[in-house]
């Protein structure tokens, strides 16, 4: 389900499961940067470039429809900065 591909790495945004989302709009209201919107009864990341990944949407969603994928990396002298 979660692909470790380049597209995801460029601008990761929270994943919203449309089968769980009931369009309540709480995530839209709590998002500090206005990245989310409800369209056709479901929440979507309408403005991905505005997303700060704060995770307030994930925390507030009553149906747990929103999940943020995380990348786990090690930062030390040997690792180059991950793009």
């Amino acid at each position: 389900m979660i692909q470790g591909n380049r597209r995801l790495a460029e601008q990761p945004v929270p994943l919203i499961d449309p089968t769980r989302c009931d369009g309540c709009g709480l995530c839209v209201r709590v998002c500090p940067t206005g990245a989310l919107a409800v369209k056709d009864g479901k929440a979507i990341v309408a403005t991905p470039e505005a997303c700060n990944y704060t995770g307030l949407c994930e925390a507030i969603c009553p149906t747990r429809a929103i999940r943020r994928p995380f990348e786990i990396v090690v930062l030390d002298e040997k690792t180059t900065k991950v793009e």
Partner: protein
Amino acid sequence: MSRANVAHTAAAKVLSAVPYFSELDPATLKTVARSAIRHDYETGQVVFLEGEPCAGLYVVQSGWLKVVKLAPDGREQVLRVVSAGEVFNEVSVLTNVPNPATVVALEPSTVWIIQREVMRRLLDQHPRLARFILQNLAEHVLYLVSLIEDLSLRTVEARLARHLLEQASAGELRRHRWATQTEMAARLGTVPDVINRALRRMVEEGLIEVKRHQIRIIDRQGLKAKAMLDE
């Protein structure tokens, strides 16, 4: 005054200082005090062992005692510490089980035991006493629940630390591993909220930092220690 009377006056005094016995009328208090049995303990002495048949309700007159669970390997988990004016082993009054824990004196202590039958009769006749005991037990349950939560959170942290290290080093540097907190929770046998808190604790401790979608391990040794991996 006979020696027995002096002793039981002391018992009555101790009992009247305990919040829920203070509700009793003097005559009842005296009756209870007269049936109370006094025990003195030295530092380190065991008051009773977990599993032994319980004697009754214990009221602390003086001293400092700990209520513990002992693991077979000798590890000790302190459930509670009691001092003068406090009561322990309320559980025995309401149930028929043996002592649920071990109690050890931390300094020279004096306790009074009120036998189960005496307590049961009291509870039947004094609903307010029953209510006080219930409230006490409920508060104790709340405390134990938070203790359990704490203990299990620590275990999750160790598992999470190990998981982060494994995920970060799997494959070559270029292969990034993605996981949601929900997936991590399922894998580690817990719930996303607990993972969230564990991650935040690790950030506070300077082991990792979370920058947008990246969980970055910044203190690998520290994280190893947290995972309790030896190297």
